[in-house]
C-alpha cells in the first residue's frame, strides 16, 4: 500500500506567477512522456517481473515518479495562482481555463487528455525494461526542452532536479536489463520469456 508524506521530494517555490509557462509544463503532469505515465508504467509492469531486483526497482522508481507528479502539479499550481481573467487572456491560456479554471488536469501540452495509450505493459522482461530506458530518455528530452523555453530561475531549479532523476533512472533500468540477461539462456537470450515460460526458464538456467 501507499501512505502519504506531507512534504515534496524537492521544494517548489515559484516567486512569480506565470501562466504562460504552465501551458507547456503541464505536459510533464499528464503528457506523453510525463510523470503520470511514468509512475503507472512502472507500477503496472512490476507484476510480470520474475526477479526480486526488478520487482524492487520498478516499485521504487514508480513510487518516486508519484512524488515527481506532485512536484510538477505544484509548479503548475503556483504558476497559475491568483490569476485574473486578463492574465489568462494575455498568457493565451483561454482554452485550458474554460475547461479547468485554475485546476490541475493531466493533459499534453497540446491539450490532449492523459491516456494510457502513451505506454505499454508488454509482460516481457527485456521488452518492458527497454521501454523504460526509452521512457527515461523521452522525459529527459522534455525537461531539456522546458529548460530551453523557460527563463524563470525558480522553475528551472526544480526542472534541473527532475531532469537529473531521469538520468539516474536510465542507469538503473540499464543495470536491470543486465541483471535479467544474466539469468537467460546465454546463447539465445530470446529463447523464452521468463515472465511467462516459467518451467522453461528454470530448465535453461
Amino acid at each position: 500500500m501507499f501512505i502519504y508524506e506531507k512534504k515534496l521530494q524537492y521544494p517548489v517555490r515559484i516567486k512569480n506567477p506565470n501562466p504562460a509557462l504552465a501551458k507547456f509544463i503541464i505536459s510533464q503532469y499528464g503528457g506523453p512522456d510525463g510523470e503520470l505515465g511514468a509512475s503507472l508504467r512502472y507500477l503496472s509492469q512490476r507484476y510480470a517481473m520474475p526477479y526480486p531486483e526488478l520487482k524492487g526497482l520498478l516499485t521504487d522508481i514508480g513510487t518516486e515518479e508519484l512524488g515527481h507528479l506532485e512536484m510538477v502539479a505544484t509548479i503548475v499550481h503556483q504558476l497559475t495562482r491568483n490569476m485574473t481573467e486578463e492574465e489568462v487572456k494575455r498568457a493565451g491560456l483561454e482554452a485550458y481555463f474554460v475547461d479547468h479554471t485554475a485546476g490541475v488536469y493531466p493533459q499534453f501540452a497540446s491539450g490532449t487528455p492523459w491516456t494510457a495509450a502513451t505506454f505499454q505493459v508488454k509482460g516481457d522482461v527485456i521488452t518492458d525494461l527497454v521501454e523504460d530506458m526509452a521512457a527515461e530518455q523521452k522525459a529527459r528530452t522534455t525537461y531539456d526542452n522546458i529548460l530551453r523555453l523557460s527563463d524563470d530561475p525558480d522553475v528551472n531549479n526544480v526542472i534541473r532536479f527532475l531532469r537529473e532523476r531521469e538520468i539516474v533512472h536510465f542507469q538503473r533500468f540499464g543495470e536491470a536489463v543486465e541483471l535479467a540477461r544474466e539469468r537467460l539462456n546465454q546463447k539465445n537470450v530470446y529463447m523464452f520469456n521468463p515472465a511467462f515460460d516459467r518451467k522453461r526458464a528454470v530448465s535453461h538456467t
Partner: protein
Amino acid sequence: MHHDHMHHKEPEALPDYKVGRLPRSAPLAVPFVPFQSDNPPQYSPEEGFTRGTIFPGLDLPFHNTVNESNPNAGTLLGEMQSLSFALTDLHLYLDTHPHDHDVIRIFEEYNQRLAQSRKRYVETNGPLTLTDAVQDGKYAWLQDPWPWDYQERTV
C-alpha cells in the same frame, strides 16, 4: 578511457568515477549499459539533493548549468528532505547492487540521521504521515501549509 572534460564540471581526484563495468563478452542484439562500480564516489546529502543525485558519476547537467542551492537549504525541512533523498538514491542503487556492504553502511547511517531529523521536524512543524496526525491530543493533520502551497520562506 578518456572523457571530454569540456562538457562537465568534474569533482577533482576521482579517477574513473564515470566509468562502469560491461561484460567481457556479450551476446548480440541486447542493449547494454555499464554497471555502476561498487561504492562509487558520493556527494554529501545536501549537495546531492541540490544536484538531483548523490552520485557525481551520474551527474550530467544540461548545458553544464547546475543548481547552486535549493529553496530549503539550511532549514529543518531541507535537512530532512536531503537525508530522505539520499536514502532514495541509495535505495535505487542497492536494488541493482544489493551486496555492496559499504553502501549498506552509509544507508544505515543516513537512516539514523533521518529518524532524528524527522522527529525534530514533526515537533516543530507538524505531521508528516498519519502516525503523527494527532499531537498533544489535537488533530494536527489539517494544519497549513500543504506541500503545494506557495510560501515566501520555509517555516
